[in-house]
């Protein structure tokens, strides 16, 4: 086994501490009261005493799941087109997609607002879900995943009289599982952590998902806010624990050969 230099070891340890210590702080403060004694009172306040925290949690989960499902569908179809179909301007359109992908969210916030206002979707959950479904990152990842699938397999399926939908669903998607999982995870995290869109597109405090509502939890007891942070961190942690291998493979594929 290769020996690690002491400086690199110390630096890595420091880096880990910077990442892990805030989480440890949250957990420790949430189980200790003002006198430093162990208590579950704050967990009771968040999980049992009031339903508003958990109801917001399920609402946010449903929103994120809808965003992830919608983005996966759009990404599969668009990714197949970019990877395997030859149409005029394909490279140019893909280039525009990459430009759109690296643009900050704030650039498209106002155009989205105007469009949603015209459609009469402001102050509804469609305003959060629809723009997020068409985010280009998923399409980019699926394009790279589908490019890795050999054309011969596709042609063999077509020889067996499979139509395009069958080829996509029964050949391409099963062979690009890691890319699909990566797309699902990243789009779920995007939806779970969104802050600007709810603030801009929604008016009522009761409609805000957990990511936004956390900031306005009554500051009467900061330990309650810390327990809310644990609640908010739970779905991403669990998803990462389930799919960390596929996510790493998907990101690796996404960083592969570009156009």
């Amino acid at each position, binding site marked *: 086994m290769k020996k690690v230099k002491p400086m690199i070891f110390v630096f890595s340890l420091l880096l880990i501490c910077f990442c892990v210590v805030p989480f440890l702080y949250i957990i420790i403060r949430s189980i200790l009261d003002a006198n430093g004694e162990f208590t579950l*009172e704050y967990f*009771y306040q968040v999980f*049992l*005493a009031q339903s508003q925290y958990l109801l917001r949690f399920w609402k946010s989960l449903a929103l994120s799941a809808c965003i992830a499902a919608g983005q996966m569908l759009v990404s599969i179809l668009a990714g197949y087109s970019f990877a395997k179909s030859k149409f005029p301007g394909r490279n140019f359109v893909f280039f525009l997609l990459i430009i759109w992908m690296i643009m900050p969210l704030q650039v498209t916030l106002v155009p989205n607002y105007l469009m949603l206002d015209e459609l009469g979707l402001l102050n509804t959950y469609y305003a959060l879900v629809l723009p997020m479904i068409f985010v280009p990152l998923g399409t980019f990842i699926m394009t790279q995943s589908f490019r890795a699938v050999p054309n011969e397999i596709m042609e063999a399926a077509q020889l067996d009289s499979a139509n395009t939908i069958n080829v996509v669903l029964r050949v391409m998607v099963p062979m690009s599982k890691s890319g699909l999982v990566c797309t699902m995870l990243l789009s779920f995290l995007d939806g779970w952590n969104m802050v600007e869109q709810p603030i801009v597109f929604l008016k009522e*405090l009761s409609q805000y998902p957990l990511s936004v*509502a956390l900031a*306005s*939890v009554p500051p009467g007891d900061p330990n309650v806010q810390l327990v809310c942070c644990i609640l908010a961190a739970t779905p991403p942690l*669990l998803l990462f*624990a389930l799919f960390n291998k596929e996510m790493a493979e998907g990101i690796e594929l996404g960083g592969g050969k570009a156009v």
Partner: protein
Amino acid sequence: MKRRVLCIVCLIVFVLSACTLFSLKIEKEMLIQVEVKNVHGISTWDETVVLPKTVLFEDAYGSHLYLVVEGTGWESGLRVEEIRKDNYKIDIEKGTVSLPGGSDYCFITTASRQPVPGELVEIIEGKEIVPSEDSFLFVYPLGIPESYSSTSGIAVAEESQVAVYGTNQTAAEPFFEHKEMGTHQTMSGANWRIFSENTVASFWKQIPLLLILALLVSGVTVLWGVSFFVCTYTYSPKRLFIFTGAISISSLIAIYVILSLIDLPSAMLPTTNILHIRHYLSEYEIMFSGLKTLSAAHQTFSVIEDSVKQSCIVTTAIAILLTGIAAVGEWFYIRKE
């Protein structure tokens, strides 16, 4: 490894779902019921609002005067707000509380239990209260005072040095201890308490249902724990997850049904945390400190207590048996594979 993580994920989803159902019910149960007095039209600070002294709530920290106000944001809804002691005067001789006008007030005159500032309330004024027969236990920890005399509403059945047991033909439901203390002022004493037999019996009879809820959650947790250890020994864990998942979903449905049957009397609940076991134990202690000096009343309450204990033992035994059968069944099924 992934199977084990999936077991943990399923368990967390089950616990969060159960907590959601519990929190909806606890929020409703902990909603304090109040009667209010609206004072409108006192538009100038020169004028004075005068209230009877019975609107004050006493506790270990002194007297408190409460209002109902409309909250906003996270704290929306009708909530309790306490008026600062500097802002009102108590006249002990006249038995009144006075404070300056200047705005509309909605005072809490009586409540099902001691209000806590900031908590949600349900105003029951205006709703028809049907009087019914009830028995009251008056407990005087420092002994019955010399000035004691029973009111006309109470037919005293039994009396001792520290307790009085009597029947009230026109007792209002729900039972408000603070209101009854105001009604039976002539029976007042230092640190005295009033317990309603109907309320106590209603609370105790629901203890087996609460126990079933606790056992359902524990049982499903145990099953997922067994699945956690057993899932790596099977070639195809699909059936295991389907079996435990089906039991979890059935348990959630059962929890929902049982919660809809539960209706805990507000007078028996603690002020802040419904799981505050010490509160229930201290209430039990106070009640039985008076009951043990009264033979007939003690027998009545003991009969209820014994039947509840028997139900709890039988329920616990059945739940442990069923959980054990399910867990052992899972283990043997996996070993057979």
